[in-house]
């Protein structure tokens, strides 16, 4: 009997531990694109820094994945198998089928400097990318790429950011130099839904309400759409004199939003975007926040301060602490569901 009791006790303890671990284990992996030459890299000159895609480990450190590329901007993963991912780099779209062990420059000579790459989660064979001279799409898991620009202007289609509507396959919004464009047929055709004076830097869809989108721009401040991107209005309370670089939603709290800016630093809202405050106390001066992100598992706020480091805040910007990646220029955050790993 005692043996049986001990066994039962052990089983119970193990079960409790498993539940506890499951509760603590993050549901997402964080990947970042970063360069570590402090902005002084000159093409052709000596540079031994390690750059490219990094993954956050359990202890908070970051592990470099495979290919050392000094200028990567965006990474996207196949939801069926996160070992297959794509990177927008100065050299073109980089594709790895095995978690970064092997790579291929998936695009040809006629694609240079893609700025943003996104897999359609509802049609993951399809991958979209914004490029300086327009837009390209792959229908075969990134193996081949074609132009998809019907409806985009001949001039004015510089595309900085691509976002796929997670609720509809083939529904994509892009941020260009002339505003925001929408396709609902997988990039077969585009329509202009909002005009901007300069480049749209970021587009994000709310994790709480798929009809709610935010955009940030170089010259028009922050924009919001409440109808899935068909119409846009300026977001009051956000300064518009200088460029805003990206925007983040908190997946745990619909009231929480964050904006990154070289000039304003980090701006947050805790009332769904009605009011905004600067949360720069504790960040290096000058607080040139190149990118921000909010951890979908914990609500932790990230601020990538240009060529300084990654900073993290667990009280939504009231206090900050160093989060690694010293001296880096982080150009993109991507949270990937662990289920796809």
């Amino acid at each position, binding site marked *: 009997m005692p043996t049986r009791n001990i066994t039962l006790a052990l089983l119970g303890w193990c079960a409790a531990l498993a539940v506890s671990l499951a509760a603590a284990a993050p549901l997402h992996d964080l990947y970042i694109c970063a360069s570590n030459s402090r902005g002084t890299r000159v*093409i*052709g*000159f000596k540079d031994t820094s390690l750059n490219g895609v990094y993954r956050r480990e359990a202890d908070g450190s970051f592990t470099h994945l495979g*290919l050392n590329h000094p200028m990567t901007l965006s990474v996207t993963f196949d939801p069926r198998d996160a070992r297959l991912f794509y990177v927008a780099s100065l050299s073109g779209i980089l594709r790895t089928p095995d978690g970064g062990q*092997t790579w291929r*420059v998936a695009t040809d*000579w006629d694609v240079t400097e893609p700025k943003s790459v996104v897999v359609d989660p509802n049609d993951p064979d399809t991958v979209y990318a914004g490029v300086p001279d327009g837009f390209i799409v792959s229908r075969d898991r990134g193996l081949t790429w074609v132009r998809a620009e019907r409806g985009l202007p001949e*001039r004015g289609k510089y595309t900085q950011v691509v976002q796929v509507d997670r609720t509809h396959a083939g529904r994509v919004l892009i941020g260009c130099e002339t505003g925001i464009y929408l396709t609902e047929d997988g990039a077969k055709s585009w329509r202009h839904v909002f005009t901007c004076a300069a*480049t749209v830097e970021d587009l994000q869809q709310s994790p709480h309400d798929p009809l709610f989108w935010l955009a940030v721009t170089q010259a028009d401040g922050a924009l919001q759409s409440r109808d899935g991107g068909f119409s846009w209005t300026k977001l009051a309370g956000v300064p518009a004199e200088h*460029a805003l670089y990206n925007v983040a939603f908190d997946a745990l709290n619909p009231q929480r939003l964050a904006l990154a800016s070289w000039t304003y630093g980090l701006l947050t809202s805790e009332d769904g975007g009605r009011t905004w405050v600067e949360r720069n106390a504790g960040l290096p001066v000058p607080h040139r926040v190149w990118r921000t992100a909010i951890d979908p598992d914990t609500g932790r706020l990230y601020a990538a301060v240009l060529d300084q480091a990654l900073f993290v805040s667990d009280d939504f910007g009231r206090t900050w602490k160093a989060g690694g990646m010293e001296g880096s220029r982080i150009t993109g955050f991507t949270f990937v569901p662990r289920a796809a790993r």
Partner: protein
Amino acid sequence: MKKFISLLALAALLAGPTFAQPAYSGPMPVPPSDTRTDALRRAYLDRVKEVLVWYSATAKPDKPETIGTGQIVAKLALHQDAGLVSQRIIELMKQPQTGDMFWMFPWAAISFLGRDQLSAEAKAAIRDAWRTYFPMRGDTENHWAMYYSSLFLMSELYPDDPAGSWFTGKSSAENRAEAKGYLIHWMDLATTIGQGEYNPTHYIGEYAIPMLYLATWSKDPEMKIRGHMMLDWLMAELADNTLNGVLRGPNARTTEESVLERWNGLSSFFSWTMFGNTPPPAAYGGFGIFFAGAAENYQLPEVIYHIAVDRSQDYIQRDLKRTRRRWRYSDQFMPPVYKTSYMRRDYAVGSYQGGQSDPIQTHVWDVTWAVPDPRGVHNTLFSMHPYASTEVLQMYFTEQPDGLIDSLSGQGKPSFGVPDKILGASPYERVFQDLDTVVALYDIPPGTSYPRINGFFSKDLTQITEDKSGWIFVQGGHTYLAYRPLAPFHWEHLLGYRQLPSAHGYKWERVDKGEQGDKLLVSEHLKNGTIVQAASADEFKSFAAFQAAINALPLEFRLEPVPVVKLTTLRGKQVTFTYGQAPVVDGAPLDYTKWKLFEGLYLNAEKGSRRLTITHGQLKRVLDFNTLTITDSVTP
């Protein structure tokens, strides 16, 4: 002279005290008296050998750090020390690789030069680096020329290797197809609507070297002949645009140093090697060795040689070029650039119509005069609007706006964001040139950085005379120059740049050389203009006679609402030039739509033709990219 001494010091630093660099530090080259083909060829090969021998001698077997890619190329080209070189290559390949496409072409050259000399281990080490090291492709045409030429050749050297053995993740055949696709695309652009990075003082090497490599080593007969033809094309342009070997403006891309000391660029290495009519720069311009390593495989066409060295006849040349790619904030992707060059024995005048050709390093116009020895001499005169804006940088660079201007200084381009710069172009400058008259007009919107015009006045000018008429008369070499600012001005010393030690990027301090240095004519007026006229001293009895002739010419101008100049030139042309309108010469407005790809005494091509005709005297060479043929003929 101070500059010359500092260049000598640089050369000494590069070479070590025991390795004088003969042609750089020696007397001015003397034009050969024997211009027969064989004699020219021998002289060319002698110069090439000088480069190889000098580089080889800088390699010290007991100091491995003295043996870099330049020394390896030299030794392989001379068939020296294959064992030592192999050992050094294996060491170098164990280190982290860096340099992107500037890494690719030297190692491509070493791979080909070393095919029959290097050890199997050394060859394998290089080959494996093309799998493990990922060189960036870059963001401009010179990058792509180096990247794709190197990738093409290496994929030919290892023709059947699988995708996993290349950094691109593509097989040898896929690499070749991609590289060939780009290179033909670039050649198509250059031979139909003009080159993008035209007349570059340094970047010429980044085109000429890859083209030489294609011509030398490509197994694909199409790429081999294309490389040869493009190299001829580049050298023909160099010959046509140099004054005694010195490349002058306009330049799509040049540097703070070269825009003043016009000789001090890699282009002078090519003039020296090909034409023998000017000294090479220190260390043969750095990249010269990579041309020299394969230079024996190129023979300069005689017709091009004679264009380079013959300045007995004045000539005007008009060329069509294009801007760098404008990714955003522009109605045009690669707008046309209309370039004019007027060449005389004593001076050359060159310009394009103004506006932005490249965001940083463009030089729009100048008068450059001939000097007995160009080393250390600032033999040029021009004005420019010192323009700096994030929007224009974003037009050409796909980067975020903030920090762009500051980062340029840290990337080795110190002057972009300073008001007293003398390098760069402005969207608010319009230029017209007729023979040796240049009119530059400026209409700068309020709030633009920077609200001034900078006129460059060299330390090497003599007889500087501020005339009560408003003209400033100067003499440079055997050339009389008249400079007319259209608005009030003051003088400043032109400060130089001294590079400081830095662990991260470039850092600089400004240097004032005082009254002995160059001067800037600074005119802080938004609506502004400059008129320059040039003449050979031989044309006038005296400097005073030149001044009198200029002062006698009718000249009217106004600056409001936009600058307008109406003048009679020294050559008797009636010119009316209004900012924003086509210039009118002798009553006829200039029609830019009729501008040809090349039109002049020596170089001629129709727009869109892919066919360049090069002539001098009885000699003629036709480069036809439609048929991929080179046709030489001698007119009876």
